[in-house]
């Protein structure tokens, strides 16, 4: 009996000891590979935070350029993605705009939250920091993109607003960028912000302020969303050089031989008498995957996965000035501004058109047709064409004279609907 008691006592102690061992086990683990939020509150890391805003912005631009390329007359969707078949028919659904809507809002939000961190970590120094100026610039560009691309906008889970809601916010952001850009390091950000301001005022229909801001941007100035290999690669390059997802076949670009320097392309395949694509041998892909055997005319504007995409250009500013002159009926000024752009690109100047005409005229030589063509070529594959189709009520949206050879179902989309993800989660929105 005593022996049993002794044994029981021993194993009870053993069990107790094991439980103590288990209880003492520390389950806390710190895994490498992630950066904790509080670890970023270091003045030396503000450059990295600011670069993150740039990364978020770059995420937006190439995707929008790719989608708009297929939706408008910039390119013909010739690939096999699910949305390509719809986009080439001029259809874009709210289910298909979630990426663009979320990423653009996130680009603006990331800029805003970075600015808050700069103020919290750098104090007063943040007000004139190049990081702050640049982040405001990205915030403004995010708003400008929302305004140009989406039919309506919404902020902070609020109700739908007209496009002007985004352009007004863009103006505030660009003005903040200009105010913060006080150092030589911020010089490009300031110039880009003036360009953004001009774009936003075009959106608001305030042409005098647009021209005033545009004048501060030299013709040769370019501010771009930055891409690099292997991270942050340019989707437009990947989808045209890596695969034949869209083609310049039967576009304005293809009507130039040799190609216009603003819209360069390579003919990878041609159609033979049997309507079959014959490879030229210039590329690894000669035709798209779409059912009508579209030859692949490969864009060369972005000839590398690391090619940057312009978002503010002096040449666009000259065309804004040209459009303002055209609206004023000043054809001489219009011609001069167009020729500044053409001369910059090494092209011969145009003669002053005989008449202003209208965007709906079939005359290719009137002023509006020239402006249409010059903006098409100058801003090719930069995600801007849809906005021009929308604000000009361009005849392309009624029939697709260049790309879509099939009878249209109705009007082609000239703007993106608010994304279904926003419709589902924003109780202040009623999406139809």
């Amino acid at each position, binding site marked *: 009996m005593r022996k*049993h008691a002794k*044994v029981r006592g021993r*194993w009870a102690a053993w*069990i107790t000891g*094991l439980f103590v061992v*288990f209880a003492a*086990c520390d*389950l806390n*683990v710190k*895994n490498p*590979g*992630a*950066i*904790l*939020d509080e670890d*970023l509150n270091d003045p030396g890391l503000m*450059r*990295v*935070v600011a*670069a*993150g805003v*740039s*990364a*978020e912005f*770059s995420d937006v631009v190439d995707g929008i350029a790719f989608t708009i390329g297929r939706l408008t007359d910039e390119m013909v969707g010739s690939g096999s993605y699910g949305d390509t*078949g719809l986009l*080439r*028919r001029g259809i874009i659904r709210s289910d298909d705009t*979630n990426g663009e*809507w*979320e990423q653009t*809002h*996130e680009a603006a*939000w*990331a800029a*805003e*939250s970075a600015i808050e961190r700069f103020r919290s970590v750098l104090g007063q120094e943040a007000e004139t920091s190049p990081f702050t100026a640049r982040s405001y610039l990205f915030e403004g560009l995010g708003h400008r993109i929302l305004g140009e691309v989406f039919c309506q906008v*919404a*902020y*902070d*889970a609020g109700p739908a607003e007209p496009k002007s809601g985004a352009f007004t916010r863009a103006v505030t952001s660009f003005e903040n960028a200009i105010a913060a850009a006080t150092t030589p390091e911020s010089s490009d950000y300031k110039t880009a912000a003036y360009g953004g301001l001009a774009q936003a005022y075009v959106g608001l229909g305030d042409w005098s302020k647009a021209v005033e801001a545009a004048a501060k941007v030299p013709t040769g100035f370019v501010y771009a969303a*930055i891409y*690099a*290999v*292997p*991270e*942050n690669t340019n989707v437009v390059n990947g989808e045209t050089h890596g695969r034949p997802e869209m083609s310049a076949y039967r576009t304005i670009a293809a009507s130039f031989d040799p190609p216009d320097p603003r819209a360069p392309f390579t003919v990878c395949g041609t159609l033979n008498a049997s309507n079959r694509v014959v490879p030229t041998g210039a590329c*690894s892909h000669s035709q798209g*995957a*779409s*059912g*009508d055997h579209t030859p692949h005319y490969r864009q060369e504007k972005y000839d590398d996965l690391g090619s940057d995409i312009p978002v503010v250009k002096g040449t666009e500013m000259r065309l804004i000035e040209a459009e303002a002159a055209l609206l004023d009926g000043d054809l001489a000024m219009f011609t001069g501004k167009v020729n500044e752009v053409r001369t910059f690109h090494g092209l011969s100047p145009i003669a002053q058109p005989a008449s202003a005409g209208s965007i709906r005229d079939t005359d290719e030589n009137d002023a509006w047709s020239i402006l249409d063509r010059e903006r098409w070529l100058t801003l090719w594959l930069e995600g801007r064409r849809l906005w021009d189709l929308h604000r000009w009520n361009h005849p392309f949206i009624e029939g697709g004279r260049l790309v879509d050879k*099939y009878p249209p*179902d109705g009007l082609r989309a000239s703007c993106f609907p608010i*994304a*279904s*993800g*926003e419709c589902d*989660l*924003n109780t202040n929105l009623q999406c139809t």
Partner: protein
Amino acid sequence: MQLLQEINHYITGVGVTWNPVPSVMQRLNVGLDYESSDLQDFKPWGYFSALEGDREDDQLQDRNLTLDYAGTWNASRGVFSSALSWGGQVYDEFSYQLNGFDSRFAGPGDQLVGDGTIRDVGESRTRVRSGGFFLQQMVGFRDRLFVTGGVRWDGFSTFGDDFGLATYPKLSAAYTVSDESFFPSGLGIMKLRAAWGVAGKAPSVFDAARIYEATAADEAQPAVILANFGNPDLGPERSEELEFGVEGMLLDGRVAYEFTRFDQTTKDALICLPQAPSLGTEECTLRNLGELSNKGIELMLNVTPVRMENLEWDVGVNYGTNKNEIMDMGGLSQLSSSVQVGQPLPVVYDDRVVNPDAVGELPVYEKRYLGPNYPTDTYALSTRVTMFKRLTLDLLGEGQKGHWLANGPGYQGMRRTSWPTCFAIQDRIKNGDTSTMTAGERAMCDPNRSDQGVWTMRADFFKLRSATLAYRLPEGLLPVATNATLRLQARNLFTITDYTGLDPEAEDGGAAGTYRNEYYNLPPARSFILQLTVNF
């Protein structure tokens, strides 16, 4: 192209058992499970799909350490018996991955990662540590009724900082009713069982913390972007299950049966709660919010209709149902088109043609709920015939029904005018004969009018998984061999289905029950295997 994979897997452990008194048993196990693999995918310079070549090398290591202690104290008094169990476990799981990719080689040769011009590398090291205790009491009555109650407490390194231990109770009973005198002897052996319990599923490694991930911006300069909002209150999903069942044997073991009905409710399901993107970010926050219901039955029946000296024939049937439904998502009606309250998880929501029979009209599409993405009913039929105790024929067939699957190869093949079921319609389109065509025909086969959604279809099927003929060679035929068997097996002989894709059970995506479709899949190959097994 070279595709090589080398896998090393070692499992080792040490176990100690100690019975300080005959009624007390204790065991302590320490285990190590180690696996490493090296995958090399090399496309040399000049390869048709990557003209300048590329190479990928993926190295993985998984190391799981286990410390497991359990003890039991058995006692009995009169018609009652008792078993008190206690114990605890500690797990340490470490995973390491190193992935290298390189492309655009300067020229031919056996290139390695680092020899190309576009390099990409990734490293991941994650550790999850968990531990828990349990206490369990079983009480038996006359060796035929057993009632067990228990509780365990678990902790995980992936729980939020403000979340403590998770508690999981359980209760079960088993009753061998055939041992009772009132039970008719003709009904053989029968056991009734019921169980209720709670189990948990921990969140993943970084779910609880607000973290940023490193990326590159501004021409390969370091940058950070938000990766996860984090939630310090994050805990495990809790699944509560109630199960009833009966099992038994009849006719001297020639009929065996088993039936189970289960009703599982997952509470505090881990849901990544998104906010309206206009609030600023697309990142969602993982919360313990959702409720998911999972109900079904499992039925097994094995019958031996013939049992003779030189002939035996067995037939088996298995049938199961599993119907799930999202009950709640913290007030949200949907997270995505495939995750919606009141629908199965995931549900297929896709385009249908509203006017399929309209002649000469273009198709008009409308999105509709079609049904579950995973089968609601599964069944298996098997039979075995054994002759002269040497020759055996085994057949195994399996079927699934109730699910919908997107036929991606069909859609993309149709768009390229290379999908056979569309050849006739596409010939008519080419000849301009669309006026007599229905909207349904154009929706399926006109590359410029079709929509991917209409290629989503029911994927019910029955497959003959395998047919095996085995012959045990006469003893002594092969010198020094104890026995030898010659086996001819055919796999995937045929499939009965109306699904027009390549494989009605394809899973591209679909990890952990998420939406799946058929896209980048190869169907299982029909194969024939001739095998000789010799034992010495």
